[in-house]
């Protein structure tokens, strides 16, 4: 039973303390039985606080540590290792979540959130009293890593893993690799063709013995968990008459790089599908890449005046896509420059909502201004209007740059600068149960500190499946997802929690019900002082606890989840 517990209550900047009165929480628990130290801290995870905790453990001879902060998914491991640095067994550490489950969930009720946080911390103190030193079990991790999706992100992740001497299985749904990148001609910022870039990386991949590329293939099921996933992959018949192949792979980790879909405007949105000369940015890029006359033509008509309407499907005020798609301002300006360089008599009119060519991409914006492109701007409440008059397509705007003067431009072609949306096919997300964020893209554990990890251990996310990105950003994210996936399996061994069942042999009278309930055959029978009792095989027990509720004399408990512990937590949550 712990008697010298230290409690740390985190402000999380203001994420917690804006809604939860952390000082009140501290005062409410400082005199609880066993608590010798209760502190608030601005950022519990900061280096300085971690060092203070190590000092406190030693100075106050603490035997248990509690941090009340964010989700344990984020920082359980951090604080367990702080506890170890203070020479305590890491399993004596107890975490409680007062951010996702108090301050944020109840940001509409500060008093309620504070009262809840107090009880959550009291319950953690109750649990901490029972937290005993434990020693983790180890198991061997599969050394192969699967990458799903062979766009630029998946391919770069595969190259990076291959460089680390890891076997990679790169699984692509389509019959060819490269994703969207492979379909583009010259790209911002380098002007290199997307198709060439994609081909270059693919050729490199093909040279590598430790990379298997499966095109026309999809993962149809996944079993197991970090270190040991079994993926079933179905490869479509490549030619009529070929059989459909089904294969199984054992992998230690999975990088998901399934990419994005371009936003498809609704019928009538800025004249889309009402007027035949209103097209999307992907269509426009393909048009200027493939057309090779002196003058640009679309559907047999000469194009001189092009109107670009920005943020279509992004930064929506009423729609679902509130986010900025990041790539599009730069990409459309680049395409407009390309069009003007390649074809005669092109005049570009950019109907924007504020240009977001961040970083070096600003150079392109400057180039477009120099070449005479016209920029007109409106706010979200008064978007430009596309309409037809006397057989001409026109775009009208109240231009905020000229004191909301109503300006009208006749356009031969209207390009809707469409953003990125999550893939409509969510089969991979459903299979791995990957949570999605407010933008409906796959959600990372922490947007700053753990941007490629997911709450599903062993699964990382790379590139645009996590949110809109240009190629540089997609590759950055792919390289870090590869590094993270590799780090899971690099040691060859993984630790499992040392949570196993325990039998109270005084109470057990061997009825065999627990053995029947155990899905892993971890329970046997043995003689103790002339009495037959149940015995747990600790190396087989997975710590599910299924045996515990079925025992008639209540002789089984799961370590860390004993009836005493849970009931004392319940008493605290009930109000003491």
């Amino acid at each position, binding site marked *: 039973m712990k008697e010298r517990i230290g409690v740390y209550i985190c402000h999380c900047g203001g994420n917690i303390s804006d809604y939860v009165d952390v000082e009140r929480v501290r005062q409410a628990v400082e005199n609880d039985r066993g608590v010798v130290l209760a502190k608030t801290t601005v950022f519990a995870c900061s280096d300085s606080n971690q060092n203070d905790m190590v000092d406190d453990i030693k100075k106050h001879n603490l035997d248990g540590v509690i941090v009340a902060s964010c*989700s344990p*998914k984020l920082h359980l491991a951090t604080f367990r290792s702080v506890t170890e640095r203070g020479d305590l067994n890491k399993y004596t550490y107890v975490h409680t*979540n007062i*951010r*996702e*489950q*108090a*301050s*944020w*969930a*109840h*940001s*509409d*009720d500060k008093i*309620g*959130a504070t*009262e*809840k946080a107090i*009880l*959550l911390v009291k*319950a953690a103190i109750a649990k901490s009293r029972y937290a005993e030193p434990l020693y983790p079990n180890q198991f061997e991790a599969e050394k192969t890593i699967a990458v799903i999706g062979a766009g630029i992100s998946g391919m770069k992740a595969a190259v990076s893993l291959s460089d680390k001497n890891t076997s990679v299985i790169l699984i692509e749904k389509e019959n060819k690799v490269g994703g969207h990148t492979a379909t583009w001609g010259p790209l911002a910022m380098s002007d290199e063709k997307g198709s060439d870039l994609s081909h270059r990386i693919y050729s490199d991949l093909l040279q590598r013995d430790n990379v298997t590329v499966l095109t026309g293939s999809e993962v149809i099921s996944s079993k197991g*968990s970090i270190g040991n996933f079994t993926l079933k992959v179905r490869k479509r018949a490549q030619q009529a008459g070929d059989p459909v192949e089904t294969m199984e792979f054992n992998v230690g980790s999975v990088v998901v790089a399934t990419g994005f879909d371009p936003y498809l405007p609704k019928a009538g949105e800025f004249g889309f599908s009402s007027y035949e000369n209103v097209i999307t940015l992907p269509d426009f890029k393909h048009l200027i890449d493939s057309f090779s006359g002196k003058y640009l033509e679309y559907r047999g008509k000469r194009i001189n005046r092009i109107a670009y309407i920005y943020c279509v499907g992004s930064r929506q005020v009423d729609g679902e896509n509130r986010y900025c798609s990041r790539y599009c301002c730069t990409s459309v300006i680049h395409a407009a420059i390309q069009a003007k360089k390649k074809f005669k008599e092109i005049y570009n009119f950019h109907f924007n909502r504020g240009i977001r060519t961040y970083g070096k991409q600003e150079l392109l914006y400057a180039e477009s201004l120099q070449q005479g492109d016209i920029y007109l701007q409106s706010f979200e409440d008064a978007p430009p209007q596309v309409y037809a008059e006397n057989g001409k397509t026109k775009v009208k705007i109240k231009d905020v740059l000229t004191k909301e003067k109503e300006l009208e431009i006749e356009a031969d072609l209207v390009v809707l600068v469409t953003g990125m949306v999550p893939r409509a096919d969510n089969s991979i*997300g459903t299979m791995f*149960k*990957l*949570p*999605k964020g*407010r933008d409906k893209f796959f*959600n990372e554990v922490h947007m700053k500190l753990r941007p490629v990890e997911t*709450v*599903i*251990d062993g699964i990382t996310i790379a590139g645009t499946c996590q949110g809109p990105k240009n190629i540089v950003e997609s590759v950055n994210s792919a390289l870090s997802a590869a590094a993270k996936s590799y780090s899971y399996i690099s040691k060859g061994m993984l630790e499992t929690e040392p*949570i196993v069942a325990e039998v109270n042999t005084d109470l057990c009278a061997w009825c065999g019900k627990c053995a029947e*309930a155990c*899905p892993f055959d971890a329970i046997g029978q043995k003689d103790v002082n002339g009495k037959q009792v149940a015995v747990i095989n600790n190396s087989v027990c*997975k*710590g*599910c*606890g*299924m045996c*515990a*509720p*079925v025992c008639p004399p*209540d002789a089984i408990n*799961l370590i860390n*989840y004993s*009836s005493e512990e*849970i*009931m004392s*937590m*319940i*008493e605290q*949550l*009930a*109000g003491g």
Partner: protein
Amino acid sequence: MKKNAKILVFSTEKISDPAIDMAGLLKLHYPPTVYTITVPCSSGIKPSWILHAYEKGFDGVFIAADGSDCVFGESCTEKTGNVVSITHDKMKGTGIDPARLRMAAICSVCSESFVKQIRSFNDYLIKTLHA
């Protein structure tokens, strides 16, 4: 009239905890008198714990079950179901309304469903216990 019932949620570390955390992240609000205790698997919940919660003053107990996503295998659904039915019998025996124990499968992406279930459970408990 009271508007928030006191509800104990048994949630699982790998499957339903992420959904409940995500509900917070998305600021999907539910009553602050809902408290979560995390267990590895919903089929390991003992009926005695649930009964203890009523005894100590909880209005309701909600099991955010693993369902078919359980990392410990398919038998979880049936075994969690058994825990609930044994507890229901015990509740009837002691005169506790069995509807004060609810179970629903909550997977790691089920934040909205969790909040919806909890709000409707809260409404039921307020109507039957505190009206």
